[in-house]
């Protein structure tokens, strides 16, 4: 029998981010033992469930894979609900269940000018994307965020790819950022480039609209609520442009913008 895609891993390290800027206890990099995966693609995700959830918190939580090295799997989370609150108390040696890698990741075209559009926590899968890109000189990252920059695992990206970030402190900052997104998407489309987006739903909706207006090739990573991650609970369904229902966990979470309704 093949090896199960389900495994139990020990926590190596839980590293808080953004503490210098008053974000104590809200942003964390979670480093786990490396699972016995044969490979993964940036944009794919995993289901993660600490043993400490017991039966009280039944669902695992989906997280985009941030990075995987020879001995370490990294994901990144922001504390938002009761699951991530409990995850914020993980200690080295604690056990977590993991299944993955799941779904379909981002398109990778080494020689194509590629624009990565990230909103907030949407930066996470792009850490691995930039790191694993064979020609990072073709990659440009545009990152909009509300919290201070050091709350996010963005430090390694600028070392390899062109990098531009903007913090939203007021509503007009967002308008300025989105204008910049449109401008960059236009340049990208002019070079027959590829735009990849990950972030909150309104951000994805805007990127999709821009891609239609400009005629830019774009992919969007959806973040729908899900219980299982494998296509059984039918909680994460999205609508194809033609109307058919698809599970974001199996057919996505990354979709071509012109093929999905957001």
């Amino acid at each position: 029998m093949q090896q199960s895609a389900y495994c139990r891993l020990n926590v190596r390290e839980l590293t808080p981010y953004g503490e210098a800027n008053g974000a104590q206890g809200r942003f964390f990099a979670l480093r786990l033992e490396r699972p016995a995966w044969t490979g993964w693609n940036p944009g794919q995700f995993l289901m993660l469930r600490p043993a400490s959830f017991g039966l009280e918190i039944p669902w695992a939580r989906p997280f985009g894979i941030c990075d995987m090295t020879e001995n370490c799997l990294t994901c990144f989370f922001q504390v938002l609900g009761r699951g991530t609150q409990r995850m914020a108390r993980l200690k080295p040696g604690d056990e977590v269940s993991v299944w993955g890698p799941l779904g379909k990741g981002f398109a990778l075209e080494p020689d194509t000018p590629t624009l990565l559009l990230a909103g907030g926590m949407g930066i996470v899968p792009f850490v691995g994307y930039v790191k694993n890109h064979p020609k990072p000189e073709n990659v440009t990252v545009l990152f909009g965020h509300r919290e201070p920059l050091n709350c996010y695992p963005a430090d390694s990206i600028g070392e390899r790819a062109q990098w531009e970030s903007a913090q939203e402190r007021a509503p007009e900052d967002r308008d300025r950022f989105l204008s910049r997104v449109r401008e960059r998407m236009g340049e990208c489309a002019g070079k027959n480039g590829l735009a990849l987006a990950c972030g909150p739903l309104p951000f994805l909706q805007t990127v999709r609209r821009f891609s239609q207006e400009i005629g830019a090739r774009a992919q969007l990573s959806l973040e729908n609520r899900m219980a299982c991650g494998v296509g059984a609970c039918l909680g994460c369904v999205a609508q194809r442009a033609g109307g058919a229902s698809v599970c974001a966990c199996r057919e996505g979470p990354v979709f071509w913008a012109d093929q999905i309704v957001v």
Partner: protein
Amino acid sequence: MDISVTLRGQTRDLVLKNPVLTASGTFGNGLEFTPYGDLASLGGIVVKGLSLEPRPGNPCPRIVETVAGMLNAVGLQNDGVEVFCREKLPALPWREVAVIVNIYAASVDEFARLAARLDGEEGVAALEVNVSCPNVAHGGALFGQDPLQAAAVTRAVREAAPRKHVMVKLSPNVTDITSIARAVEDAGADSVSCINTVLGMAVDLPARRPALANVVGGLSGPAIKPVALRCVWQVARAVKIPVIGVGGIVCARDALEFILAGARAVQVGTGSFIRPDCAFSLAAELPAACEQFGVTSLDELRGSLRLD
């Protein structure tokens, strides 16, 4: 230790290599779970509810996590019986594991047509009749809440699918579950599975909105285990046909508790979301759990609850 089970029906028996089945709606068509275990190691696979025609299901949000459980109002989204028979069933290892098809229809006549269509499929071992879905506007729950309606559906399926074991899934959302159980037994059911989800609701206080687009949904998971155990206990004493326990079962000990209360087999539902290998590991761990609790055979354990 031999943990094989025969569900002795009034018309058709169902032989299982072990008493561990998956619960409908929590295990897809089975194929979704092949990365997590060997389907042939299970007693049976109950596939996602099928209807005669494809159904789009309810709008999202359709699922919400609750304490020790979850609510769902998926609304029986499925591709319809033809797609299942043409594309899914041939890919399942049905010669090695019992494939049980959960069926849903909006009328007695439609139930009969669906059952007749599946009666001709060699790969289908049994039909599980869904008379208790709480999440669709027309049907489901109504059939399961009225003994006469439940009997009419059971009789229609029984007659339309003479070659199949007919299992009827009972709703806990009734005043007296034993009256429904007796009615479907009298109408020819080979076994009953209990329970379907418990009707529930969650709200988002800050938004002042229901947590589910459908407002209400079916509660499942460890939170409903005591309700399910009570229903199995009551039904097992009320009918002679086998009872399949379902509701919050996540480990071998849970399964043995249901068998102690009178079940012949069990279904793992929301447990498959807690960990995708839940049913596989439960089946693998059952012999050791029997030894741990001094169970010499499942027959010996079944219904041996001491009341003195």
